């Protein structure tokens, strides 16, 4: 956990009072809706189909139990009793009243949570691996650097009015759980031959209507130069990024149009001007940030405690443990993923009661800490193995023990036409139907790891391009039509999926997905060959044949 100090708290409170003034000016008519729009968007407030939507940041996916309780409180007091966790370590409330927003923000500020730059054309919430600090084999905790960037990007005086939104993600593990290759800047923490910390810097990744996988712009930027290098990228982008067309305004288009070589030369030239400036970070600064991350005092506990041995007799517990429990850097502990994908439910939603109860469980079993991942699930990052059976029972009672993490029913979906004013098609009902089709856990297990991503419009909030199966809802002649891609992935081998053929109607989507899965089961060389690997080996064709042969 990162503990805010007085300085951080002051800034958040100052931002709340500024926003209160802005809302007041809107309510009094001093600001037009058009003028207010730019201001509310700097603070996570969208006008959606039914009401204002309020998006709150969970920087690098780390939450303390009291913070989760504050989110539950906001859900209960100002919304309709639930919140929605997004693909970028944010939480959204869908039914909030404008006049309540300043108070909701003030309540969140008390526990060090804010909504700064969760929307608008600025530097968005910095995201990271939800297993940061606990994953075995990690080079070092990327959240130290995430926090450094969080501070540096917050209310930045030069880069708060960029051509378009700007997203940064960081990972420090070989397996990329932060999807860094589909971010405007992706940072992979590495060590050089002297053992010094630095970053491989990727730039120009992104989804939306023109998806690109990020390209490496520099193989090693020393940790002390991280801020100046990021600043150089942003300065080039701020000046040369396109502003004539919103769909061509992301940095990926600039990188694409200039070419990575020319773009990196521009950045390099700018960087040389500012590299040896007050942006340089000395070790003491990093140590100071590190000192405000609180790490649990782990006990020395057995790798295979009696409690776990006994519980292994219960097949339901075992199914959950095998699916949702991952190795921790400390052998007596585990990382537990909490699926927010119940069969038939909307992906990523949690009720206020669930949030409160989970906060209590975090206090009891996970040193008061909760994580949020881009797959729209939560995690308890420090659970002693002996506590797993008791935790499972408690989660099961809350409806939070669905053993489907990384399986076909662990669907990532945007809110779609049910909430979003940009959407062309529904996403949530498609996800719900698919979870019903594959509700049988044995079947889901047999299929193995398979990520389905659903977006209700071309803006791709559900990251459909990088789903093993991607579903994109569009509107055609007044009807919802879904385009289906296969073979995408968001990890260290990130790739964009390929279209299998013409779009299909709402009612047919689930059947088509079943066909694709059946084809895969018949085509895979062995049970360990994942869906996405079979697609890589065979291409789209056999799946296409299967789907369209009878349609």
């Amino acid at each position, binding site marked *: 956990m990162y503990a805010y100090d007085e300085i951080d708290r*002051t800034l958040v409170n*100052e931002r709340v009072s500024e926003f209160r003034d802005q809302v007041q000016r809107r309510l009094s008519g001093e600001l037009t809706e058009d003028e207010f729009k730019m201001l509310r968007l700097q603070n996570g407030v969208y006008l959606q189909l039914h009401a204002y939507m309020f998006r709150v940041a969970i920087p690098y996916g780390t939450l303390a139990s009291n913070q989760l309780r504050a989110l539950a409180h906001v859900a209960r007091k100002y919304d309709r009793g639930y919140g929605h966790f997004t693909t970028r370590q944010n939480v959204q409330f869908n039914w909030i009243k404008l006049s309540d927003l300043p108070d909701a923000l003030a309540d969140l500020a008390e526990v060090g949570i804010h909504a700064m730059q969760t929307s608008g054309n600025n530097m968005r919430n910095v995201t990271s691996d939800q297993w940061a600090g606990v994953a075995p084999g990690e080079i070092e905790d990327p959240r130290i650097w995430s926090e450094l960037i969080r501070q540096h990007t917050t209310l930045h005086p030069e880069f708060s*009015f960029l051509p378009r939104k700007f997203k940064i993600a960081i990972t420090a593990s070989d397996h990329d759980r932060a999807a860094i290759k589909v971010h405007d800047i992706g940072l992979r923490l590495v060590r050089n031959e002297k053992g010094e910390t630095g970053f491989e810097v990727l730039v120009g990744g992104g989804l939306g209507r023109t998806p690109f996988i990020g390209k490496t712009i520099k193989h090693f930027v020393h940790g002390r130069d991280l801020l100046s290098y990021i600043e150089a990228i942003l300065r080039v982008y701020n000046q040369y990024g396109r*502003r004539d067309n919103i769909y061509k305004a992301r940095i990926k288009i600039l990188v694409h149009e200039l070419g990575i070589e020319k773009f990196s030369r521009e950045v390099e030239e700018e960087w040389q001007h500012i590299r040896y400036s007050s942006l340089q970070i000395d070790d003491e600064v990093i140590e100071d940030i590190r000192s405000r991350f609180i790490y649990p005092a782990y006990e020395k506990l057995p790798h295979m405690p009696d409690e776990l041995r006994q519980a292994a007799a219960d097949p339901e517990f075992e199914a959950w443990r095998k699916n949702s429990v991952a190795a921790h850097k400390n052998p007596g502990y585990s990382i537990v993923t909490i699926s927010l994908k119940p069969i038939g439910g909307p992906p990523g939603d949690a009720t206020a009661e669930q949030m409160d109860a989970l906060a209590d469980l975090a206090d009891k079993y996970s040193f008061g800490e909760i994580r949020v991942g881009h797959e729209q699930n939560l995690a308890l990052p420090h659970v002693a193995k002996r506590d797993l059976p008791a935790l499972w029972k408690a989660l099961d009672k809350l409806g939070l023990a669905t053993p489907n993490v990384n399986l076909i029913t662990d669907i990532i979906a945007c809110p779609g036409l049910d909430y979003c004013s940009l959407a062309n098609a529904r996403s949530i009902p498609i996800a719900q139907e698919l979870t019903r089709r594959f509700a049988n856990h044995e079947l889901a297990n047999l299929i193995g790891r398979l990520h389905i991503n659903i977006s209700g419009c071309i803006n791709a909030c559900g990251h459909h391009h990088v789903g093993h199966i991607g579903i994109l809802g569009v509107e055609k002649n007044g009807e919802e039509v879904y385009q289906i891609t296969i073979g995408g992935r968001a990890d260290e081998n990130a790739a964009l999926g390929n279209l299998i053929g013409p779009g299909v109607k709402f009612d047919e989507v689930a059947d088509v997905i079943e066909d694709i899965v059946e084809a895969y089961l018949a085509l895979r060389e062995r049970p360990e060959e994942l869906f996405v690997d079979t697609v890589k080996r065979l291409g789209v064709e056999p799946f296409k044949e299967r789907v369209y042969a009878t349609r």
Partner: protein
Amino acid sequence: MPLVNGGKIADDSFAKLAVDTPLPEGGDILVPAERFLGEADGLLKRAGKVGVIWPNNRDIAELVPYLGKIAAVALVFPSFRDGRAYSQARLLRERYNYRGELRATGQVLRDQFVFMLRAGFDSFEVKKQADAEAFMQTAKRYSVFYQPTGDGRITALHRRMQLRHSEGVGT
């Protein structure tokens, strides 16, 4: 449109010239970039101060040879959301050491004052009277700054280092 200069509402001594406005005998003038670059020698010889209105899509480095001779640079915010002039302002102040008046023009609302001050602006053509009147109050809204810029405000990181060291000495 009220002008805020030196932290308060002030008279604007500059007359804005279009590309083809006849040159007045005396008085302070703000001249569009194109015209300034074309007639720089003549403009700089006359009595009265000269300032330049610089568009946000033109390389500010072109202005560098003249920075010691002009009294004002007016940068342009064609809309609230177009932030290119923030970069130009910082380059002028921090890279090219420009010390004259740096004016924000265009869509200037109170909600940008802090950003603009931090980027190096010291003069503001504010769209609304109420915003101009609220300038001082708004400018003081923040006391914490995370980024180092040329405005010299102490950053949060730096403040923490000072606190650490003073605690170290005290104990």
